[in-house]
């Protein structure tokens, strides 16, 4: 019982995201008011509790905590309410916007998109991550990958891979120094997004091919929005759009739905890689 508790990647995510937050705080990397953080956590957990009550299930606070940490790291506001609203929208969307037994949007992502797109009260800070924090996020992401490599960790790798190919390709075509694409990749928000947001197994397709298309499509769309339409928040919009298109991808490449604690059936099903025996019971990472 205890082992399965630790094996839940959500625990790992909560620990690493909290560590990142503490590191960012102590290094003055970002300005987060503890009261704002508390409001985000409270709103997330309260919404989860309310939603669970409505559908008569036992509330689990691991996911809302991860959502709250992601929002704290990625979204900014002067006031408290926009952040609480983002948290409520994020968790509320899990209960309200469902299709085929799954929620449609990545919770933290839709919370951010809703507040940035429809209000003037919140904003993201894609450039606010110093190199030290970037490296910390990369380490955390890599740690997650090593610990849960049997899980669906193809999502961040495909996302970052496609994105890297695009920004390096652009630089080569323009004849730019490679310092420019490197600068674009050394972005804490991007790495955090890849390892802790888009990788959410609950909102990425279950089939491996669909999942690769999902991650690659998000990278392409994010790249286009950022470099051709100059939309700084492009990656968040890209993920929201891909989440909307996900049912189509799942229809084209059907696979059984993922539940927390499931072994990774889909990887086995395409026969590319057999999860090792020791890892076979590892569940998959969470948003």
């Amino acid at each position: 019982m205890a082992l399965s508790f630790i094996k839940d990647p959500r625990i790992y995510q909560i620990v690493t995201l909290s560590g990142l937050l503490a590191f960012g705080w102590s290094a003055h990397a970002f300005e987060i008011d503890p009261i704002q953080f508390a409001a985000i956590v409270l709103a997330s957990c309260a919404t989860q509790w309310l939603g669970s009550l409505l559908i008569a299930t036992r509330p689990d606070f691991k996911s809302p905590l991860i959502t709250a940490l992601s929002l704290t790291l990625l979204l900014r506001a002067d006031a408290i309410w926009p952040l609480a609203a983002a948290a409520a929208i994020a968790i509320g969307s899990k209960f309200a916007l469902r299709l085929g037994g799954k929620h449609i949007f990545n919770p933290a992502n839709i919370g951010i998109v809703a507040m940035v797109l429809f209000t003037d009260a919140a904003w993201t800070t894609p450039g606010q991550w110093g190199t030290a924090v970037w490296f910390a996020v990369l380490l955390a992401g890599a740690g997650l990958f090593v610990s849960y490599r049997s899980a669906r960790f193809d999502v961040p790798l495909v996302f970052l891979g496609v994105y890297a190919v695009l920004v390096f390709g652009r630089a080569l075509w323009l004849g730019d120094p490679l310092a420019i694409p490197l600068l674009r990749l050394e972005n804490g928000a991007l790495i955090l997004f890849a390892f802790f947001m888009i990788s959410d197994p609950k909102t990425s397709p279950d089939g491996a091919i669909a999942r690769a298309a999902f991650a690659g499509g998000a990278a392409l769309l994010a790249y286009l929005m950022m470099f051709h339409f100059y939309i700084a928040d492009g990656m968040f919009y890209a993920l929201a759009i891909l989440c909307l298109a996900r049912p189509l991808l799942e229809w084209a490449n059907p696979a059984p739905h993922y539940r927390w604690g499931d072994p990774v059936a889909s990887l086995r099903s395409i026969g590319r890689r057999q999860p090792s025996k020791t890892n076979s019971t590892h569940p998959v990472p969470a948003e």
Partner: protein
Amino acid sequence: MNRSLKKSLFAAASAIAAITVTGGAVAFCGFYVGKADTKLFNKASKVAIMRDGKRTVITMANDFQGELTEFATVIPVPVVLEEEQIHVTENAILDHLDAYTAPRLVEYFDEDPCVMYDRMEMMAAPAMSVGAVDKLRKKDSLGVTVEAEYTVGEYDIQILSADQSDGLAAWLKENGYKLPDGAEKTLESYIKQGTKFFVAKVNLAEQAATGLKYLRPLQIAFESPKFMLPIRLGTLNADGKQQLFAFMLTRSGRVETTNYRTVKLPTGMDIPVYVKNDFGAFYKSMFEQQVEKENERAVFLEYAWDMNWCDPCAADPLSQDELRELGVYWVGGDDKPGIMPRRPMPQARDVFVTRLHISYDAEHFPEDLMFKETNDRSNYQGRYVLRHAYKGDAQCEAAEQYRANLPKRYESEAQTLANLTGWDIDAIREDMNEAGQSFEEPKKDSWWKRLWGNDAKEG
């Protein structure tokens, strides 16, 4: 009892004045290219950018100090500009914006500790037409198209588009522009991104007609989804680092860079009073220290404020006319420049100003500055505090306590200054001593001296 006098202080503290110690040529977004072989360097520049949606007005200060015939600049622009989109304005407006947003030194004078602690805030104030030619569009053998030619104010301006960077480079050289090494590669990148080039030289006759000894700021207005400032060309012929001050005028809130970290400078610290004599040196050292601390890769926020007011005001907020001149098209154009310190104006102007300071070179800032307007309307200012100790001869227990605490306070000011600037702490202490901030513990009177009228007896 003597009550301390409340004085106000005006110490020149413009960061421009403080930081620009180079003299010589200064780039805006582009690079200076000499027509003769004189090697020209770019060191510091001031740019104001109005941004609202896609609408952009860029005002580029020009403190070029060489021979006017030597002045030439190449600036990447996103679109071909019509004549009405180019303008020349006055230096005074940018100077005013600089003054209004400059980091400030404030001074407090301690009250008589026997009466009460009160604070008085003072601030340091910082320093400080169009004629047309014809339009033509021809493509020459180098693949360079002169999309348009204008004479605006004292400048002869051409808008170029090009197919090939070597063609453009050859064209520029043929026309007397001297290109730094590596320019072709950077030009190629811009050409592939569909960029046009705004090239300007001084029209000597027009310049003489202005009767001015300097060149006025150039302004361009255009619409583009790209919210950025091209700095790459300017790094090519730079010898060492350059300083850029970008004043952003927006509607919704603070501006930050998306591809570099934007950092608020440390602010609000108490520092030794002798800094008043050379705030410029202090600010420069502090800034350099912070640049170092951020691995030379950060953009620094020096001011972010609602243009309706200021507190303390380093200079009055800009008038509506001045704002309009800088491209803030949504404010009315008929108010009088007036006194409006400390309190919000009755009619909101809806202008938020962000002052960014960047110390850059090609190694640490390989990419152009990409900006983003946030909805952050919280106010920030670079502000450094001098606290003068009470000098009167107050005689009470509180006064003794107060005097006993002074060395500790001075020590903490010394530490703060050393941390901020990297200056030697012993040298700081020495300077403080000289300025009357002594670290010696004051002699303590025995408590009974205040009993039975002993103090009166001593006279």
